[in-house]
């Protein structure tokens, strides 16, 4: 069993709005998780590769430019293809409510929109950690 949950916080696409991503990264680190943060402007390939190499349990994606419908599912696909099918993907940012069902269908398990408290994210991770612990 793993001692500490590892989470990759990543910024796909071209937008530089990293305030939310950095807040989540820092707040989750304070909550006791091991956090890796990619920095901005990462390609889906780079994010999937980092997640698999770093053997993370979760990938949190942050995007505010509106490219989520293209980029989030692509990262899920690359993870599955590259041997990271058990990594749980969640996302956040300026994401219209109408887009959320489509993203969930494509494997993004939770989407946190503006104003969501950090506790919601922690609750989501905790609810899913047993799944991760079961795997190894």
């Amino acid at each position: 069993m793993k001692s500490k949950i590892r989470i990759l916080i990543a910024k796909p696409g071209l937008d530089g709005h990293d305030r939310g991503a950095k807040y989540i990264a820092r707040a989750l680190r304070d909550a006791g998780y091991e956090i890796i943060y990619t920095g901005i402007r990462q390609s889906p390939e780079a994010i999937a590769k980092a997640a698999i190499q770093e053997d993370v349990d979760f990938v949190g994606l942050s995007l505010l430019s509106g490219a989520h419908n293209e980029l989030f599912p692509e990262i899920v696909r690359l993870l599955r293809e590259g041997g990271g099918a058990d990594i749980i993907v969640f996302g956040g940012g300026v994401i219209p409510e109408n887009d959320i069902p489509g993203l969930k269908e494509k494997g993004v398990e939770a989407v946190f929109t503006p104003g969501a408290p950090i506790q919601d994210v922690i609750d989501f991770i905790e609810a899913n950690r047993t799944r991760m612990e079961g795997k190894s």
Partner: protein
Amino acid sequence: MEHSKIPLKFKEWENTTLKRVLDKSAERKAQFTTGSWQAVPRVALPIPLTDDDYLEKLGFPGEFPYTRGVQPTMYRGRFWTMRQYAGFGTAEESNRRYKYLLKQGQTGLSVAFDLPTQIGYDSDDSHSIGEVGKVGVAIDTLKDMEILFDGIPLDKVSTSMTINAPAAILLAFYIAVAEKQGVSKRQLRGTIQNDILKEYIARGTYIFPPKASLRLITNIFEYCANEVPNWNTISISGYHIREAGSTAVQEAAFTLADGIEYVKAALEAGLDIDRFAGRLSFFFNAHNDLFEEVAKFRAARRIWAKIMRERFNAKYPKSMMLRFHTQTGGSTLTAQQPDNNIVRVTIQTLAAVLGGTQSLHTNSRDEALGLPTEEAVRIALRTQQITAYESGVTNTVDPLGGSYFVETLTDQMEEQIWKYLDKIEELGGMVEAIRKGYVQKEIQDAAFKYQREIEDKERIVVGVNQFTIDEEGPKDILKVNPALREIQSKKIAQVKQERNNREVEKVLQALKEAAQDPEQNLMPLIVEAAKTYASLGEITNVLREVFGEYQETVIL
């Protein structure tokens, strides 16, 4: 000056009148602060000012140190420029939105480009997947720019373009469109943002490393001083620093420090201070804490004037004036109960106007959800018009000047801004401070503290952590056509077929050679390249080859 009786009388008041009330009921909080933690006194007292003090610190509007405003008549002369930042999808769609805004009484254009354009990628580049036309209009070649300004006379409007790393290229496109309209570049009025340092700090659309970027910026200063004399060559921006979570003091301090760095670079390149300084402009945020914002604008004006006169020996008054655009605070908008945002924007508008802004963008109520609808944009513009025509705050210059509280806050913030400026000098200037991650860390710490306060309900955001309701998500969010990348890619292919490719190659080769020689000004060649319909991506790639690309200092 006669010894003031006020402090003694005030102590007396505290011990009697005040004490009787406090003994019965405490105040709401143990300590009161502004939105970004400036100490706020219970009651501000008059600041003892001799006549000389007044003349030195405040003076008269239109005169050094410009604390009370850069023009003698301010809005009694004319209102600020009402300038809504807009652009999305294709050049055709954005052109329609601009015409709509002009018809609604807007007085200047402000172009939003999509992220690929801002980072120098053509729409058909793989980096552009998912991003084409999303946060602004997609511009790949001069062709798109011609469509964007179709039917808009460039000698009549002033245009602001939010473009940084490839600012030289978009300015070149603009000049080329103007010439096609028969308008000389000497007549053009407008602004390019062209502020790379805050891209490294907060906004993220950098391409080249600092040295090459600063060269491009000084090339533009020099070229415009000779060829496009009415163009604001840079808009030194605190807006995005604030959006990233900085305090009001940090916003002003880091922006002024960026300004210092640009002036230093231009002087090192041999430019004369008074030939370019008058075309430097600034861009600030306006958040909800009304008095703090007003004090910020006033303090920033006073400090810049001193820096320009005392440190850089500027002689022309225009070189010392801090002229600025304001945008209301995007990060203050809530996705919850979005109509409440109209009220927030109204307060922020008032802050900008009482602070003496030269132009203003008001955010639309639905911007926490997506791109604004036409109706939302109209309300935002009406907010400015109501403030201008109905509120009466425009009828006197610097209405808050002399307010005990605002003057106290102005002095207090000025002192703290100077401290940051000294610290950045100590670190070796802004480029070094950014490379070390100092600036980013300062902002992040403030952003983290702010968000924590919201989580802990020490800071109330109406509709978010208090006064919440169950509500359905909005339905009418503006959607950008997902097939845009294909549409733009086809347009590029067509342009490449129709243009003279040998000519394009020749000018790009010349540009490459010029880029390798640090003494050469690249602007004339970029303008030439634009006219051959070389694409944004092609021009940028030539420069990428020579200059390399910037790597972010990741700070957490």
